[in-house]
Every structure is written in structure tokens, then in C-alpha cells.
């Protein structure tokens, strides 16, 4: 009997820490999203105003919808490209693949960089005067020599997507290498002997068996793409105009530039919705496999 109480006592400190640092701020921000609080006018939160923050965002703010579209396109592009490219690299690097890289761990390097650092370095690399990529692309495709990448809405968005893909490929590649290495080797070999070409064996035998891992990768990467903030902040700061403003950046902007904390909280909570759905599927996949 005493053990039963003791075990709760032992986890109590951890629970308290999690509650104080994660759950409590979440609750606070949820409450805040139903109040008005302009930091420029008062340093304490104002009265409750019901769903007004939410309806303002959803019904009155074109910038909110712009950020939603940007985030959606950004997510679809980064998730799609990262997964495809990483799958290709993983196939080459996995045991039995065509490339042997003894220093596979080096791959992880870009992932070890903080997103903010990725943002800064990409900003420098696309600098019109001394940027390496700027010069490189200019040489490769001469019409691009004169463009100022980060000043053009479409190109700036493309650069953001590129930076994101670059930063995430290593991690996703490693996960997929693990998935491929865990596939029973004979199934693929059986396909070859049965008469399958390399592509057919990949499509009919490897891919279906890799599906659970791919699903987890896609869900996980989607969650991270939707909440992208630091990279955008350092790279373009949402600009030019609002061309690269993601929802997270939009929430930040409203909170710490316009000091409209209640509204910012409501935007943050709107973002939570798709995350909850994704997290639900993610945990279902993870725990079903385990």
C-alpha cells in the first residue's frame, strides 16, 4: 500500500514542473484569448470579450487569411519536398544502397543548427552584394543574376522554403534510413527474383512496408512546418510586405509589435487546431506500432 502512494509522490516534482512551465502558460494564454489586452495601454489584462478576438481574426482580418494561406502553402511544399528528397537520399545511403558514406553522422549537421541560425545564414547567402547562393544562381541561370532574392515576394518565399528543406532533410533522411534498414531484406530480394525491376520492387514492396514510417515523418514534419517561426523571423521577418508571414509570425507580430496580446493569443489557439488533429494521428501511429 505504501508503495502505491510513494510512486505518486516520486513523480510529483516532475508533474509540478510540467504543470508550471507547460500547462499553466497554456491555460493562461487560452484565458487571455478571450480578453482584450493592449499592452500599449495597460500592463494588466482587460475585460473578457467572449469570442471577439477569434471573430476578428476570422472575419475582419485579411492579413490573418494571408498568413493562413502562406502557412498552408509553406507546409505543403516543405513537407512534400523534404520527404521526397530525404527518401531519395535515404535509398542511396541505406544499407544495400548505392552510396556508402562512412561518416553518415555528418549528415545530421544542418539539423544541429538552430532554425534562427539557418535563417541568418540563408539571409547572408542570398544577399545581393556578397551572397554565395545569389552569385551561384546568377551564374547558373543568368536572368537571375540581377534579381534581389529577398525583395521579390515569390522568390523570398522560395528562399524560406529552401532554407526549411535544407535544415530538415538530414533528420528525415536519418529516420527513413532507419526505416529502410529495418525492412526485411529478403522481401525486396524476392521481388527481384520474381522479376521486378528496381522501380517495381521499390513501388510494390519497399514503399508499402515503409508507409508507417513515412506517415510518421509526414505528420511530424507537418507539425513543425505549421509552427515555423524563428527561421522566418531571421530570414525575411515576414516580408517583403506579408509575403512570407506565417501564422506563428503573424501572432508574434500582433503580440509584440502591435501589443495586442489577447488577439495574438487567439491566433495562437487557432493554430493549435490542426496541430491537435495531426498529433492525434501521430500518437495513434506511434503507439499502434509500439
Amino acid at each position, binding site marked *: 500500500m505504501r508503495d502505491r502512494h510513494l510512486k505518486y509522490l516520486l513523480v510529483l516534482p516532475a508533474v509540478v514542473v510540467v504543470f508550471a512551465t507547460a500547462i499553466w502558460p497554456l491555460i493562461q494564454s487560452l484565458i487571455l484569448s478571450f480578453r482584450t489586452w493592449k499592452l500599449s495601454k495597460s500592463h494588466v489584462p482587460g475585460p473578457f470579450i467572449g469570442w471577439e478576438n477569434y471573430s476578428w481574426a476570422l472575419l475582419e482580418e485579411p492579413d490573418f487569411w494571408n498568413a493562413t494561406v502562406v502557412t498552408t502553402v509553406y507546409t505543403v511544399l516543405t513537407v512534400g519536398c523534404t520527404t521526397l528528397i530525404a527518401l531519395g537520399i535515404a535509398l542511396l545511403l541505406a544499407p544495400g544502397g548505392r552510396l556508402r558514406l562512412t561518416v553518415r553522422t555528418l549528415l545530421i549537421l544542418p539539423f544541429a543548427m538552430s532554425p534562427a541560425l539557418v535563417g541568418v545564414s540563408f539571409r547572408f547567402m542570398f544577399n545581393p552584394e556578397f551572397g554565395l547562393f545569389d552569385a551561384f544562381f546568377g551564374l547558373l541561370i543568368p536572368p537571375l543574376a540581377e534579381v534581389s532574392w529577398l525583395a521579390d515576394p515569390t522568390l523570398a518565399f522560395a528562399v524560406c522554403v529552401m532554407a526549411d528543406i535544407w535544415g530538415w532533410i538530414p533528420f528525415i533522411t536519418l529516420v527513413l534510413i532507419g526505416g529502410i534498414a529495418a525492412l*526485411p531484406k*529478403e*522481401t525486396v530480394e524476392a521481388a527481384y527474383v520474381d*522479376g*521486378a525491376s528496381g522501380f517495381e520492387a521499390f513501388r510494390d514492396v519497399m514503399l508499402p512496408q515503409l508507409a508507417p514510417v513515412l506517415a510518421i515523418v509526414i505528420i511530424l514534419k507537418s507539425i513543425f512546418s505549421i509552427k515555423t517561426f524563428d527561421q522566418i523571423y531571421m530570414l525575411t521577418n515576414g516580408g517583403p510586405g506579408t509575403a512570407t508571414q506565417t501564422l506563428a509570425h503573424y501572432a508574434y507580430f500582433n503580440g509584440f509589435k502591435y501589443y495586442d496580446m489577447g488577439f495574438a493569443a487567439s491566433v495562437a489557439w487557432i493554430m493549435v487546431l490542426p496541430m491537435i488533429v495531426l498529433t492525434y494521428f501521430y500518437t495513434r501511429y506511434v503507439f499502434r506500432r509500439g
Partner: protein
Amino acid sequence: MAGVRLKDVTKRWGAVIGVHNQSLEVRDREFLVLLGPSGCGKTTTMRMIAGLEEPSEGEIWIGDRMVNDDLPKDRDVAMVFQNYGLYPHMTVRENIAYPLKVRRVPKSEWEERIDRAAARVQLGDLLERKPRELSGGQRQRVAFARATVREPKVFLMDEPLSNLDAKLRVSTRAELKHLQHELATTTIYVTHDQIEAMTLADRVAVMSDGIIQQLATPEEIYDNPANLFVAGFIGSPSMNLIAGETNNGSFLAADIELPEVGGGSRKGVVLGIRPEDLTVVEAGSGHFDAPVYATELTGEAILVTVVVGSQHVCARGPRHMRKDIGELVGIHADFSHAHLFDSATEERIARSS
């Protein structure tokens, strides 16, 4: 229809040698069994023929074509893998249909071919299941059906019966032999079970340490083993191998002398004689006497192990004989199937010289 030929094939992984300078000719429509202990290179040989492993040296021929540079799919072989290699996400039916699918066999033929292949191994009512819902033996039968659904030039079977229970193995063995006769397809079959090898094979290749020790019919291998390895490996209980020397055609070892064995006069000789050629008799009435070390009743006979010098020798006695451990018994030897081996080269030496 085609034979298979290996010419001086070697497979190395760094310093590890899987198959060493192997030459082998499998005749058209022949049932050839690769037999040998675990790790001797049987699977590696198969995989090189299938194209899943590239030989480090040498040539592989299927029919009149050198296939070293051909992809597995272009070699037209079918393989039953040691651990099945079934497609886990497909049903049994889809598994069996896959070779037809990737080889672009017209869909109208599928049904009949799948049913025929499945019926051969009695899979009829399992067609809609997934491999994970099958027992080991059932999976093995699916692998069989998948290999026999089309008519390849060569069948490669890597211990296909290893996961069946003893009874099913015996009946499947018979079916397999019949099936191979019916399909008349060149078959290379790997096993480490010598009974399987003896009953199935047209010819057996006994392998050890990546080298074929002897390639011959089962009778030949049993009656005239080429060297000490084959002599000791084939037969159960295994052949008695008694180290000694010959003197004017007599075999001398420890405290025994066996006349008229042959082999002239030489040192470093091993006498090989099977337990069934040694009969236990009353002490004093055989070729030599020896104390009993242990007895085992097999059912139809009794196996008596006696001590000769520092070596154990196994002999057969009549079913009703009972001997105590330590008791002195006589051993009568029939030398007509005995062999002499050189203990240095381990090769068989002629008895007449």
C-alpha cells in the same frame, strides 16, 4: 530448361571467404542438392546464381548464357528463401500473383495458374490471408507456390522444409520430388539434412568451408566418400574413423590388429567403417574385443559404443542383446565397405595398393 554452370566462382567479403574457387555443373532437369554444415556457403552459392550476390571471381552460366552481368529478373530463376521472403502487406493470393504481375503474364491466365500452384501445396483456403496470419509451415508453402506459379529455367530452394514438423517434412519431401519430376525443371536445393539430400537428389554436392568436397550420386557419396569430411558427415550414426597405420595390408590401431584391410604399409592412416558393418558378437569370437562404453536402443537394433585405445567405435548388435557398460564384447567387421584415408591430406586412399 537449362543447366547451371559455375566456373571457378569465389565470393569474398574482405577477408571472409564465403565460397572458394567453386566449379559446379548442374545438368538440365537435374535435382542437385547442396549439402553441408551451417556456414559452409550454401546460401551464398544460391544467391550468386540468383543474382543477389555478385561473385568476386569466376563465371556463372545458366543454359548457354553467361549471366554474371544480368539482373536477377533477367535470369529467369525462381527462389524459395530460407526465411520465406513473403511480401507481408500482400495476401497469399497477391504474393503468388506477384511474379505473374511483374512478368506481364496476361491477367486472364492468373486465376488458373494461382489455383494450380496453391493446390499443389494445399493452400486453397488460405489465399485471402496475410502472411503474418500463417504458421511457419504454411508460409513456406506460400513461398513454394510463389516459386512454382511460373515456369522458370531453374528453381533455387534454400532449406524450404526446415520449418515443417517431422511428419509434414516427410510428406512434403515426397511431394516435392514428384513435383520436380512433373515440372522437369533444373532444381538446386540447399539443406543441411542429409536424409533430405539422400532422398531427393539426383546428385549431391557436399560442401564444407566454401569448397565442394564431393559431387556425386547419393549412393556414390554414401558408399565411396571422397575424403574424411564427407565420410564423417554423411550417414547417421556417422562412420567410425579410427586413426592408426597399415602394415602389409593389416590395419593397426591401439591394441587391435585387423588383417586383410589393404593399403600396403604406411603411417598416418584412418580407417573408415560404418557402424552397420561392425557387428557385436560374444567376446573372443570377433576380429577384436573391446569394453562397452555405452549402448543405445534405436528400435530395430542396438548401437553399442566400445572403446578402442582412446577412441570410441560404434557397432550394431541384434535388438534383443543387452550388454552392461564395461563388459567385454567382440566385434566382427565386414571390410567390404571399409575405406582408408590419409590422415594428412584427408583424401581416400586405395585399399588395393
